[in-house]
């Protein structure tokens, strides 16, 4: 098994203008996702929603700037750290991850030699 970080990139304005019902549906979607990952034979190691990008700070080559890295409409809105057999398994899991206003990014987690 290996560890993968699933990064959720979405258009933040989707949530800013979402109704309470849409919020509720979103929460339920993530609850369902957690269940489906178990069924797929993967493991969610950790997962968090992130504060909007207005709260973000970037550091590029020691220069600290306000805002997120990506200059796109989508912003990093949350993540799951999952354990999966291989990239295909991780991508299978990632396809289940709700991101109605954008998409997700899958990053292999670096295996630190000190382990």
């Amino acid at each position: 098994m290996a560890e993968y970080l699933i990064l959720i990139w979405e258009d933040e304005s989707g949530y800013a203008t979402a109704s309470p019902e849409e919020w509720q549906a979103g929460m339920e979607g993530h609850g369902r996702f957690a269940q489906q990952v178990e069924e797929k034979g993967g493991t969610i190691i950790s997962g968090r929603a992130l504060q909007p990008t207005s709260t973000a700070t970037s550091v590029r080559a020691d220069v600290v700037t306000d805002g997120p890295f990506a200059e796109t409409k989508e912003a990093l809105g949350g993540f799951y750290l999952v354990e999966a057999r291989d990239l295909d398994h991780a991508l299978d899991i990632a396809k289940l991850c709700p991101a109605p206003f954008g998409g997700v990014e899958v990053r292999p987690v670096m295996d630190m030699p000190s382990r």
Partner: protein
Amino acid sequence: MAGTGAAADPAADDDPAADDLAAGDDPAVDDPAAAVADAHRREWAFVLAATARVAGDIDLAEECVQDAYVAALDAWSRQGVPRNPAAWLTTAARRRAIDAHRRGRTLRSKLPLLIEPDSQPEAPAGEEPQEDDVIPDDRLRLVFTCCHPALAREAQVALTLRLVCGLTTSEIAQAFLVSEPTMAARVTRAKKKISAARIAYRVPAAAELPDRLDAVLTVVHLLYTTGHTAPGGDNLVRDDLVERAIGLARMLQTLMPDEREVRGLLALLLLTDARRATRADAGGRLLLLEEQDRSQWDRRAIDEGTALVTGALRGGRPGRFALQAAIAALHAEAPSYGDTDWPQILRLYDGLSQVWISPVVALNRAVALAMAQGPEAGLAAIGNLERDGHLTGYRYLPAAKADLLRQLGRRAEAAQAYREALTLTSNETERDFLAGRLAEVSRPAGNSGGPGGTP
């Protein structure tokens, strides 16, 4: 197919008694260098794919296979060419991989390959391959790994040429007109991603197969089109890329005989390539389909392609390669451009645009529409494409538009479209063609310049 039988023992290197392994009266024995070159072209994928499984590391596998080919030149010169060169090479390469593992190089393995435990029982690293080992055909694993959708298309193409076809980085760089360091970096990055992201060395499960196969077929098709119309430079066709693409399509057809789209792709490549000799005149000028000497088309390729199309269209809704092949088959069978079954071609394009939503298909459909129903109908369809903007910068859009305007005698508009097309292509042969047409419509209108008039 070579390589599936018992392996000749390359340790025969040191054993003159192994002479009986040599195909004594094969003419290739007289020329071991030619036999090695031939085995490089035909068997590289088989040997590397089978060695990767034992080496467990892509770079180590490549290195061992290279060494095996070098050793073959020497051994085959002294002992004759073995009956089964692929098996000989595989056993030699695997032995080197096992030796490398014994010497502890595994610890420093840079690009570990994720080998599925579900694969057939396999001699684990460290065990001698037996002479009667049946070497599994892992070429599909190799192809699907190279064309994994997590790799960028250009990386898929480069890896396929490098690992499946055995081309050098320098050869691949030349084929794609990029510098060798650029191509080397591209190949290294792709190999690292396979290793770091753990892209498994396997053939995808049935559920993912259609999508994954489509990626493989797209890469092979892209290789073909890159060779067929070189993006720059003064040769219209790069024969080697074209032949590699057809070779890959044939290989896939052998390995996946029941996949209709594989059959469709092979048919499409054969039918398009049947026209290769007639695509330019003696001076290198590009000839359009309507100008080509149909008697010079390769009948054997057409017959083979047409037979494959029939199979590819049967048994359910045909895929995009089968439909494109069917269109190519109609062109190949037509006695002339005008006498082509345009209404049928238009119907096939309608089918194609349902299974493959692509502005390029829409443009080709517009050309077929112009042939079936007249240039105005085609021009209207092209106008819609211009407005939706997906083809902005695509050189064949202004070129097709210019041609229809020329046919309608709208010379000033045609000239403007030819000029636009000229700014978008760097292929010298295509540029010459467009410049010739531009000169033609820019000449002061003579008596013959009326609507539909052809000078």
